[in-house]
């Protein structure tokens, strides 16, 4: 192929991601002119129509931002309200919250690892083909995913998508002991299955790409942070949620309906999600999780984004262990929820959605209505860094035929398990070479 010929590579819609986005790559000779990861998911204006709603409705409404990680939205909104009203929930409620979040992680990670991402490493279009090649593996994957959903259903009030049971101050109904204990045998199985998952995906071959990322994740003293903590980075940042907007911002760029997040300092891109969590909270992983990671060659630092699939597998193990421990020690709380002293104020919430931090800030009026709402979903925050990864991937693979390059780019995007619905959704992948 001549270096000066026009090459246009076009993929209209990126698959195996949630939502709809596009990629546009312009190459002139060996020079990359432009890389745009665009999100054409039609805007749905959540922040605008939350205004005037009651604080109590916000968790259910924000859940609808994303069907893949509704807990991230419900929990973030709930914590923000509790923060505004000065509520601290008792330990058993906190444990249940972590448990349901573990459910979302198991479900989402199992879905992504096996059904969305693994086929890339195996050169298959989808998990259906994978099932043809290795049906027992896919059956196991589905069972693992189901265990995540079962947790969501038991704690969330009967459904995994947009669960109905979480509220400001606790839960509408706390599950009975026998309902929670019924999850134990499956979780015991899930730990074995996640160990096996680490083995399987750890054995994939990973395209070379090392990046010097700025990682941002939640950090909690006593646990692998999921639903609570301070925000830290590998560059020394350590802030409370209320300082988030002092350090981070987002901008509206033409090629995307999602706002692009950046760090104010140096207007720099940053990375959130599994790799960030792993690198920043390695010490909080369970011994078993660290050993399993080590067995497939993962140390305390991982900077190849393609290895995120292995990190996700390690995280599945971690949350299965956490979930099992919570189920084993579960005692029915005396009250499902506490009083909610509504008052005017500002509240912040931030949790680790499976794909990264999800930040909420609300201003509440004295009658409990929302005055302003601001939500920064993980995928919006990762957009810039995705583009930066893509830049490198394209540069390193210019010799690949269009089809292969396109696929490699898609795979690089899928490293982020981007949830475009959240970020606003339609991924069009266009690679233009002139």
């Amino acid at each position, binding site marked *: 192929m001549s270096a000066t010929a026009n090459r246009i590579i076009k993929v209209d819609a990126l698959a195996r*991601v949630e939502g*709809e986005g596009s990629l546009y790559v312009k190459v002139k000779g060996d020079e990359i002119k432009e890389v745009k990861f665009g999100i054409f998911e039609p805007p*749905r204006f959540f*922040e605008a129509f939350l205004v005037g709603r009651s604080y109590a409705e916000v968790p259910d409404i924000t859940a609808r931002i*994303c*069907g893949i990680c509704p807990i991230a939205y419900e929990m973030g909104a709930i914590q923000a309200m509790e923060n505004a009203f000065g509520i601290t929930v008792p330990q058993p409620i906190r444990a249940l919250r972590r448990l349901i979040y573990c459910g979302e992680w198991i479900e989402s990670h199992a879905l992504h690892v096996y059904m969305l991402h693994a086929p890339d490493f195996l050169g298959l279009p989808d998990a259906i083909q994978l099932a043809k090649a290795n049906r027992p593996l896919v059956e196991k994957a589905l069972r693992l995913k189901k265990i995540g959903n079962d947790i969501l259903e038991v704690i969330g009030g009967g459904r995994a998508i947009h669960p*109905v049971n979480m509220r400001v101050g606790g839960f509408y109904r706390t599950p009975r002991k026998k309902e929670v204990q019924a999850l134990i045998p499956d979780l015991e199985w899930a730990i074995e299955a996640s160990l096996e998952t680490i083995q399987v995906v750890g054995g994939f071959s990973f395209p070379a790409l090392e990046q010097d990322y700025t990682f941002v994740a939640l950090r909690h003293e006593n646990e692998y942070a999921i639903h609570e903590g301070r925000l830290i980075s590998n560059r020394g940042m350590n802030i409370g949620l209320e300082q988030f907007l002092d350090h981070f911002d987002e901008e509206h760029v033409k090629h995307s*309906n999602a706002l692009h997040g950046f760090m104010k300092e140096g207007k720099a891109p940053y990375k959130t999600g599994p790799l960030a969590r792993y690198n920043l909270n390695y010490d909080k992983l369970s011994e078993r999780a660290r050993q399993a990671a080590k067995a497939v060659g993962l140390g305390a630092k991982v900077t190849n984004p393609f290895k995120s699939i292995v990190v996700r597998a390690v995280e599945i193990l971690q949350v299965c262990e956490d979930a099992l421990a919570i189920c084993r020690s579960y005692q029915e709380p005396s009250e499902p929820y506490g009083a909610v002293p509504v008052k005017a104020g500002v509240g912040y919430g931030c949790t680790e959605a499976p794909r990264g931090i999800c930040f909420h800030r609300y201003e509440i009026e004295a009658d409990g209505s929302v005055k302003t709402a601001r939500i920064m979903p993980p995928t919006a925050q990762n957009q810039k860094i995705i583009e930066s990864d893509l830049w490198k991937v394209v540069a390193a693979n210019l010799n690949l035929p269009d089809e292969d390059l396109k696929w490699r780019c898609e795979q690089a995007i899928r490293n982020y398990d981007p949830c475009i619905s959240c970020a606003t959704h339609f991924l069009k992948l266009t690679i233009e070479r002139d």
Partner: protein
Amino acid sequence: MARTRPRLGVFKFSSCDGCQLSLLDCELELLAVTEAVEIAYFLEATRKDMKGPFDITLVEGSVTTPHEAELIHKVRKSTGTLITIGACATSGGIQALKNFKDVKDFIDKVYAHPEYIETLATATPIADHVTVDFELRGCPINKHQLLEVINATLNGRKPVVPKHSECIECKSRGTVCVMVAKGEACLGPVTQAGCGGLCPASHRGCFGCFGPMETPNTAALSERLKALGSAPRDIHRLFQTFNANAPAFRQQAESLEDRV
């Protein structure tokens, strides 16, 4: 009885992805579904991008942009049975809240460069644009109902998706009525069954994910909610959430507007 495998397409419009995820959430049945139908287009699950025509198409999401308004006609032309899934596709969904507001104002609130945003003033259900063969309600849909609709379509029977009230489902599972026993505001009596009666079983009132039931007497319910102490504003909010644009709910909310 060997049948030819029908081709299934799954399309997304403005939505949260939750309804199509419901298909992947059918963990125990998923492989059987992929054996019974050929998944020919389903972006969330496969890179395979097969062109139509499709025998069965599932459409998630509502029409909110000029592009979507065009696309839905192409989808209709390329499919046999068109099934819409979810509140977005069947009534406009949560984003139809913008129908009641000034969209420009919304865009200004959320985006720094409103000029980049291409959107229609309304979010509308698919059936407002093209003929729909079956509407499956819910925010999100119930995965068992989704399987039932696929199954019934394959087997040529009428899907068992009753249109009666949520109360019937609630009572059938033995849940204690939260409105009667706790005085909670509940949309169950005017909401279509389908979710399985989740909210009352979780000790809270139904908030209408499945939209209006077949003959919803929303006025009678509003009166009752008022008597139970709900402020008109709260009743208005209740009708104007996940199925705000469904006619019965929209009208009830409108009739409360002067008192909000």
